């Protein structure tokens, strides 16, 4: 039996031998299968009646592994679920591959795995297969997780990043910058007290409410993770060959997050979100779409933050409270705190 209170991961737990088997049966199968008749296998068999599938993968290397509002486990599930949802599909199954650093405490691993299971349950998706490798101390940072997911698409709407049309309203399903600032504030070396919580959440209910209300008037969805709203909307503007203009004053942000951004000199539009969706909808359904999103607790702070237009295709601009416009470029890389 693995001592989950005080033992830690050894190289042998990734060797494929008895220790590997012990880890898989005492932790992964026990937590992920949770009484389900199909056992966790090297290859999962899925059945679907949909004739369209979407498929997505993402790796998670967050530091710190535990942060206010979540840990790497729910982040890994919610991130891939939200990527799948951008097609408007229904997530079906997820695989999880773990790279563990030798010496990683089993107690932490168990917490992470249980958090993943909870997040999967909330998203109504099963974790059906996986893999574990252990590397020598120093060859990886504690734990890396790669999740890959499949969703079935049971509608005929064309929803993808190239479908935005001039006139479309751009909606964000809630406040921006919570996740990135939670991570930054919980790192050492910045004098902030970690009072900001990550927004990590899966958005299945929000997306399905939106589709029920707006149907094929939903033109594109994108979860603004790394690079924040600025990177996501630059990509959408580029892919759809439209200009997008944001209204700065309309962008929702929680006051403590705004405060942390001010202290560190960071633009909240460049900061990662892990429980938000950017949505482009046809102008005539804007109100209905917004109301549908707001009806869900995870969308209660949704707002229309801008619109697409025909001039300057590929360019993202922002209208400042003083009425001036400026280009909001694709960020070069992660924002760094600044003193000037």
């Amino acid at each position: 039996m693995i001592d989950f209170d005080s033992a830690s991961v050894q190289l042998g737990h990734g060797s494929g031998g008895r220790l590997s088997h012990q880890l898989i049966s005492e932790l992964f199968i026990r937590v992920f299968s949770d009484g389900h008749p199909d056992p966790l296998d090297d290859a999962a068999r899925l059945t679907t009646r949909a004739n369209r599938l979407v498929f997505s993968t993402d790796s998670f290397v967050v530091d710190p592994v535990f942060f206010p509002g979540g840990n790497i486990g729910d982040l890994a599930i919610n991130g891939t679920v939200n990527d799948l949802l951008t097609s408007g599909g229904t997530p079906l199954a997820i695989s999880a591959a773990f790279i563990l650093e030798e010496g990683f405490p089993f107690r932490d691993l168990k917490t992470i795995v249980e958090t993943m299971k909870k997040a999967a349950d909330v998203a109504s998706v099963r974790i059906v297969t996986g893999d574990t490798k252990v590397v020598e101390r120093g060859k990886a940072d504690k734990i890396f997780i790669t999740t890959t997911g499949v969703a079935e698409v049971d509608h005929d709407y064309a929803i993808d990043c190239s479908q935005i049309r001039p006139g479309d309203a751009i909606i964000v399903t809630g406040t921006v910058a919570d996740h990135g600032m939670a991570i930054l504030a919980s790192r050492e070396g910045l004098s902030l007290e970690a009072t900001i919580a990550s927004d990590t959440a899966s958005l299945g209910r929000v997306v399905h409410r939106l589709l029920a209300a707006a149907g094929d008037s939903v033109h594109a969805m994108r979860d603004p993770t790394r690079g924040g709203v600025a990177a996501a909307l630059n990509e959408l503007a580029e892919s759809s060959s439209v200009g997008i203009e944001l209204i700065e004053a309309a962008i929702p942000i929680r006051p403590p997050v705004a405060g942390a951004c001010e202290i560190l000199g960071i633009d909240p539009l460049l900061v990662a979100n892990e429980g938000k969706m950017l949505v482009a909808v046809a102008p005539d359904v804007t109100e209905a779409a917004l109301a549908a999103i707001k009806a869900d607790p995870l969308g209660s702070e949704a707002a229309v933050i801008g619109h697409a237009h025909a001039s300057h295709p590929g360019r993202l601009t922002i209208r400042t409270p003083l009425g001036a416009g400026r280009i909001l470029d694709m960020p070069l890389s992660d924002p760094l705190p600044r003193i000037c």
Partner: protein
Amino acid sequence: MCLAIPGKLIEIYQERGLTMGRLDYAGTINRACLEYVPEAKIGQYVLVHAGFGISVIDEDEAQKTLAIWDELVAQAAEEGTDIFGRPLNGAGGPAGDGESK
């Protein structure tokens, strides 16, 4: 250069012989060294640059900066114009409540 943001001082404490403070920025708490602003009192706003308080915000001066405009605007409004003597078009009052929070 020199990003400095005012935070509300909520606690003063000593650490390794230095006077330190906890400051509230709309709910985010930041720690800063107060050695350069020994006059700072709980409840006052302190400008913090790179972890050091550099100046205590003078509330009267801040009020004055905003109030000059409020007064001008209010005076002009009584005469039915904006501060430049043009007739008011009635589209929303000027920022008379900017400092009341």
